[in-house]
């Protein structure tokens, strides 16, 4: 693609400028993707060099270190304790002891079972005392997978701590060699609220994230490679085991004609993207519009209009959504009123007809979303410097031109990242869809696939359905979850790398 210089670009006609921008946008996508992979490559290269230098450092530290340092390679914290840093030494040592005991008592077992996810399933076993067969539970695939992952986490943590322990020795040697005193345990404690305060503050939140987000996500990613479902729950019914890429194959292969899963997946993904697009942009533009109406000079009772809208934010969504859902039901108020008025003879199929349902969902979402957007837009509109409007008026702009040339670009520029998060948020907008339609109306063509898919199902509500259905195909849910991640990540990646306004966001602030 031909690149124009700034001055050449200025000579283009409006239409050419537009085409040029469009072309550079699409030309930017491969570049962004390439950049991403180069970034990943560099990331791993960095990791490689880091590990290399860490090993080199380990060796030199051992060679140059004194005997206290060398003993620390085996007994963690020995060097620290021997140099008078009792607290550190003790903590290192306790960590090592806990680790070894854990590995011996449990960790080793979990790790050894991880490749098979359990050998002996539940079954009947002859009991001599009762002289009968009793049903007995044996290995627990679920626990093996969970604790196996946990044990790996623990091992990584141990290696890191061991490395820190050796680093501490090296640092301490250096400090002593320069003739300065080491920090005492008291100093260490003091630094917890001062120069190391960030570690204190982060300890709790990060532990929570690690245990309740990272661990489950790693676990669920692994589940995608197993046959874990309602009939293979790993303990009570059957063990589950590794199946490789089979589940991805089921979900994504378009080859086999009439592959119900991939067709359903494609259909739901399409609707999810359509939904996210409309849900985001209708709300956005209408929200800005409403905010501008309320903020217009000469409009009275500004506070009242705003309060009416804001109040609807306060009411828990499950109430408003469920109620609205029933209002539009076949025998609901809306149909009832319309029939009483004689405007219609038959109830309108708000939730029964696929197109009606999809449009209604988007309309109700506007009703839900406008108050938020009105608030956001009001805040930003008030921050647009008044002199921009004044100078544009002197330059001869009419109100419409002011809107398109000043207000809208300003808004879009500032809210660029918000639009992105709001788009991905809408892709995963469980509440609105689930409470309004629950995914209905049923898509007959796709309904034989896992957990009856409907026309308004998003990937996320489908995922939920899969896990709650009678068969509870967790492995499929996990594949869907991973696909959601891939889609969201791809969109974010492209938008972040291609849209200049988002890249420059921080400069603008």
């Amino acid at each position, binding site marked *: 693609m031909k690149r124009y210089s700034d001055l050449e670009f200025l000579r283009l006609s409006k239409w050419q400028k537009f085409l040029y921008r469009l072309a550079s946008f699409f030309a930017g996508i491969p570049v962004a993707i390439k950049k991403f992979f180069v970034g990943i490559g*560099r990331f791993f290269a*960095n990791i490689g060099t880091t590990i290399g230098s860490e090993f080199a450092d380990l060796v030199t530290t051992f060679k140059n270190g004194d005997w206290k340092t060398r003993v620390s390679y085996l007994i963690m914290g020995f060097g620290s304790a021997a140099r008078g840093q009792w607290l550190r030494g003790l903590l290192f040592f306790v960590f090592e002891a806990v680790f070894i005991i854990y590995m011996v008592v449990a960790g080793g077992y979990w790790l050894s079972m991880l490749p098979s996810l359990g050998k002996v399933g539940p079954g009947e076993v002859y009991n001599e005392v009762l002289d009968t067969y009793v049903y007995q539970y044996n290995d627990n695939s679920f626990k093996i997978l969970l604790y196996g992952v946990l044990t790996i986490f623990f091992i990584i943590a141990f290696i890191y701590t061991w490395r820190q322990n050796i680093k501490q020795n090296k640092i301490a040697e250096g400090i002593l060699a320069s003739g300065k005193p080491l920090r005492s345990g008291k100093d260490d404690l003091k630094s917890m609220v*001062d*120069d190391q305060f960030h570690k204190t503050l982060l300890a709790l939140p990060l532990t929570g994230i690690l245990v309740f987000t990272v661990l489950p996500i790693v676990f669920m990613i692994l589940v995608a490679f197993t046959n874990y479902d309602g009939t293979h729950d790993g303990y009570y019914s059957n063990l589950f085991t590794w199946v490789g890429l089979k589940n991805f194959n089921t979900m994504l292969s378009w080859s086999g004609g009439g592959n119900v899963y991939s067709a359903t997946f494609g259909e739901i993904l399409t609707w999810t993207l359509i939904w996210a697009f409309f849900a985001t942009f209708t709300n956005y533009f209408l929200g800005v519009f409403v905010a501008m109406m309320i903020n217009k000079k000469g409009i009275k009772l500004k506070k009242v209009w705003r309060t009416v809208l804001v109040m609807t934010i306060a009411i828990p969504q499950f109430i408003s959504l469920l109620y609205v859902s029933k209002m539009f039901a076949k025998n609901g108020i809306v149909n009832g009123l319309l029939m009483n008025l004689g405007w219609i003879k038959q109830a309108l199929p708000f939730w029964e007809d696929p197109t009606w349902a999809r449009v209604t969902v988007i309309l109700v979402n506007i009703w839900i979303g406008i108050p938020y957007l009105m608030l956001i837009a009001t805040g930003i509109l008030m921050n647009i410097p008044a002199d921009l409007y004044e100078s544009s008026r002197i330059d001869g702009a009419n109100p419409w031109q002011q809107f398109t040339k000043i207000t809208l670009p300003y808004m879009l520029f500032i809210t660029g990242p918000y639009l992105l998060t709001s788009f991905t948020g809408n892709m995963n907008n469980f509440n609105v869809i689930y409470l309004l339609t629950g995914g209905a109306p049923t898509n007959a063509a796709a309904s034989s696939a896992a957990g009856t898919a409907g026309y308004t199902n998003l990937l996320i509500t489908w995922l939920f359905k899969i896990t709650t259905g009678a068969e509870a195909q967790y492995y499929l849910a996990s594949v869907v979850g991973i696909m959601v991640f891939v889609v969201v990540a791809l969109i974010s990646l492209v938008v972040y790398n291609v849209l200049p306004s988002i890249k420059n966001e921080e400069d603008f602030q």
Partner: protein
Amino acid sequence: MANVKLTNVKKIYSSNDGTHKKDYVVAVHDFNLDIKDKEFVVFVGPSGCGKSTTLRMIAGLEDISDGTVEIDGEVVNDLQPKDRNIAMVFQNYALYPHMTVYDNIAFSLRLQKMPEDEIYERVTNAAEILGITEYLMRKPRALSGGQRQRVAIGRAMVRDSKVFLMDEPLSNLDAKLRNQMRAEIILLRQKLNTTFVYVTHDQTEAMTLGDRIVIMKDGYIMQVGSPTEVFERPKNLFVAGFIGAPQMNFIECELTREGGEYFVKPFGVKFPVDGAKGQELKKANPSTGTIVLGVRPEHIVLTDAGQGGIPCTLEVNEMMGSEVHLHVYTEDGTRLVVRVPTMNLSQEQRDHLKQGNKVYLKFESKVMHFFNKETEQNLIYA
């Protein structure tokens, strides 16, 4: 009350955030300075020269990448700011918005767990000196810029700190207030009688306040010296251009030597370098050739036509009141600035100083500066 000693202090910023390869920017290169007890040292330089970074390293707000900072003989590299016993005034005052003026000033004393009676004593005393007693119960946002500045100074002065650091304290004030506060800082300094390190980008502040001035550029020290020293004996082109306003005129010209005497020949007019300057130049014994001649605007004299002056055309005449600044250009198009006290101008001369008229300039050798064209070093003082 203490001396501050910086030895080979270095500041390296690296984008070492765990995501990218390490990129380094060296903000301060081997900085060596011994600030004596009770001395007032000013760091001055254009923005980005590393002056604030150096000050912040003394304060402990930036890590020291290399070298040592000593306060009162103790290496403080690894000490937190709170343990260094320093006081600091920030550019944007950094007053705690949720506290009254009294609480702002008392904050550090309360952290030291000083008895409230003594705190009261000290705070009111400081407020008296700074003339902010009536505002003690106000919040910072109810104060004017000058008053906020005083509170910030008050907050720093109630502590018996060893060193008093000021980071561009006057740059947020308007010109008039700035002059007033500058005078007050001089008085304050006499009262406090402690070590001051003061950062500014304004050479006037540096000249009027400092016992010694440290002129910096791109992380390097260009010259350290008293105001007179840096003004009269600039070590290099940068210092010569930075100190003094309007800026020194720089003219590329030939340095020649005839019969032991040096001559410069700007714009084809030959001036002898005689007197004390000539002696100094002879002592330095530079080789002849193209050099950069520096002449301050106030050291250029107007002469009449035919007196051997450099012929120039007047472009702009700025009337400053006590003096006029004449922007002229020579026959080869070089622009020069001349500063002439109005006192010495006759009415006839004033009438003549109009755009487009010819003027003739003469340089005095005793206030000329000679710089090497390549190294930009002063031929005599470097």
